[in-house]
């Protein structure tokens, strides 16, 4: 009778495999390309997703880095991968909008099929603890009193930080100097060493440099738990909720039902209490911009980034 059970089970397997492959999806490991170096926020988020993906969907999520050209190397190759649902790639905003405007890359914003954005790190003005600027108002007053003297560090040129800096200048009517560094890790030494007046970075920097830095304002929609005394830009009267969004994109050839399925799967991981805690502990705020909300979200984002791109001189 054992044998009969075995045969029955075997029959079930045959029946299952006769159905379209999708019924059993995912039946093998997924390859998850990350366009940024290991150890960065995109990589860390992906690696935090790994164990939950395995536990929920019974297969591995293999994280592989494909680093280059600020992510553009991977994104320009995305649509050459098979759209069978087993290749996914980290996707980042504002990079996906700003890079094609800048013109050096071999993809267009609309080439990239985003299925979800699941987290973001809000823009923030960070100064070192010894800084004379205690509040956002101090900083703006100083910037107005002596135009062109203050220096702000940020990660990269034509990057999210750069865009945020131009936006700050524009919204406050001030003139400060942006100083580009190679990544956030690179600018921290100059920030806490006092070689620049402040940094236009992400709020998460304050978590990493607790005790050494002070956040003057943050671009989240409400105050963040780990910096409860820091006002949001909205409270300060600026219409500014923004930051670096991180999500997942798939090759264009991926069928509609798989796009939805993948979007749901990662949204499900986002609902896990433990995952939420691990992410927020690192200063990554969770969002749920799933596949159905994507068109509207991207339209809104493109409009905002086009505005900042004009300030940076990237677009007319």
């Amino acid at each position, binding site marked *: 009778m054992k044998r009969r059970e075995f045969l029955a089970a075997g029959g079930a397997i045959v029946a299952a495999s006769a159905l379209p492959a999708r019924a059993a999806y995912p039946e093998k490991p997924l390859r998850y390309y990350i366009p940024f170096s290991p150890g960065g926020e995109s*990589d860390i988020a992906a*690696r935090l997703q790994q164990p939950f993906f395995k536990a929920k969907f019974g297969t591995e999520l293999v994280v592989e880095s*494909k*680093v280059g*050209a600020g992510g553009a190397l991977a994104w320009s190759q995305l649509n050459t991968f098979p759209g069978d649902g087993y290749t996914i790639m980290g996707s980042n905003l504002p990079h996906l909008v700003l890079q094609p405007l800048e013109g050096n890359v071999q993809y267009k914003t609309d080439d990239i099929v985003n299925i979800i954005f699941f987290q973001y790190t809000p823009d923030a003005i960070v100064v070192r603890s010894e800084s004379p600027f205690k509040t956002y108002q101090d900083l703006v007053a100083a910037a107005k009193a002596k135009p062109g003297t203050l220096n702000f560090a940020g990660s990269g040129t034509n990057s999210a930080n750069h865009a945020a800096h131009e936006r700050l200048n524009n919204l406050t009517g001030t003139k400060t100097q942006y100083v580009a560094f190679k990544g956030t890790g690179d600018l921290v*030494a100059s920030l806490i060493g006092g070689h620049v007046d402040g940094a236009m970075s992400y709020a998460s920097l304050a978590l990493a*440099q607790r005790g050494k830095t002070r956040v003057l304002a943050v671009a989240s929609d409400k105050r963040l738990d780990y910096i409860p005394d820091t006002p949001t830009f909205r409270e300060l009267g600026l219409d500014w909720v923004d930051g670096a969004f991180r999500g997942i994109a798939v090759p264009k050839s991926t069928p509609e039902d798989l796009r939805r399925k993948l979007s749901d799967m990662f949204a499900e991981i986002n609902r896990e209490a433990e995952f939420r805690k691990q992410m927020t502990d690192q200063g990554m705020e969770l969002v749920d911009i799933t596949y159905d909300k994507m068109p509207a979200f991207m339209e809104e984002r493109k409009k905002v980034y086009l505005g900042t791109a004009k300030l940076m001189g990237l677009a007319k």
Partner: protein
Amino acid sequence: MDIFGNLMLGFSVALTLSNIMYCFIGVLLGTLIGVLPGIGPIATISMLLPATFVLPPVSALIMLAGIYYGAQYGGSTTAILVNLPGEVSSVVTCLDGYQMARQGKAGKALGVAALASFFAGSVATLLIAGFAPPLAELALKFGPADYFSLMVLGLVAAVVLAHGSLIKAIAMIILGLLLGLIGTDVNSGVARYSFGLPELIDGVGIGTIAMGVFGFSEIIRNLEQGEKREVFTKSITGLLPNWADIKQATPATLRGTALGSFLGILPGGGPVLGSFSAYTLEKKLAKDPSRFGKGAIEGVAAPESANNAAAQTSFIPLLTLGIPSNPVMALMIGAMIIHGIQPGPQIMTAKPELFWGMIASMWVGNFLLVVLNLPMIGLWVKLLSVDYKYLYPAILIFCCIGVYSINNATMDVFLTALFGFIGYLFIKLDTEPAPLLLGFVLGPMMEENLRRALLLSRGSPSVFYERPISLVLLILAFALLVIVMLPNISKKREEAFQE
């Protein structure tokens, strides 16, 4: 708690049976990837990261750190035995290490490398334990202007690296600077010399150039020699350095340790800069610089102690400030975060058992490395007697795997082959490629900091002489330049360096 109490706490963590085991696995893996040319700690650590999920955080970090400094040990082995750098930081070890091997002193060279590394590692561990916070503060004092001046000093010193004509050395440095220009300019965001290839937008990797110019080209050169290759394995006598060797190597080791420890703390410094500078310093200080490049024992001891010291002290900014001073440290930050530890200034007080446990484990790791490496010297030397028709294809394959694994890019493998050919031309032209690599490392950092400093000063060059650190470094550079340029000394130099 005082330093001894802290160290006791650290050793109580590091000396548990399981942590000794993970430390051992780490340094063993590190030695292995160090010996294999091309395969470096970045690729290894990122591949192993998911596997450490199941370990307790302290054990995972102890193991990953072991891989990093273990690789500095292993890198010298290949450099000495086959004139191929196992790691970029052991490029200069090739210069004299391989010559020692040719003279039948391979065992001695390996022994000195291991002992110098152990000494440097132990000192650097004590430095971290005793002075990590003030040293980190020192690193913070360095602003963009100071970095620029440090790079100027480094470039002037690079001239001394070469044996052969001064013109050729300068030409190689400039070629290195030009190669360093390839890629996106951080200040303007413009891609330079990328020829529209997306693979070149981030520039050429140092591993690609080092493996090509030092690895592939050496293999091509050996092919040319056909069957008449020198066999020097038979004549190997004493494996361990004798008293005279130790006396000769000790001052070099001390200086190498000091220089390496210092450069390791500075962001962007690390083992590569450390080993190059230490070699340069020894050559400059030597009574008879002509011995260098011909098997001088100091030429092995200095860079090997420096790269190991630097590998260790580069943990200082990571552990005290949460700042990664090189890509491997950035990866360590990622590893910490994945294990739920927020790196940064608070780590020392919030997680003392992790902080001190890691430091203590470094000493344990260094000890294990000596125990592991000294008895294995005989084994490594035996490698030399492996038929070249097996050894070289194997090395080539490992080089290709290693170069590919850095970025998962096939383009890098082709570039390495191209640099291999260029390196072969260098051999034919009788030029020393080590200054090229130094120019390549220093050039981009120099440009970046020059432009950053001028941006901050709104274009006024006075920052370079008004800041005391910068001023001192520039004076040193100028003094060195005068020594090199003065006609009579220069003539002596030519005599000394010309074969």
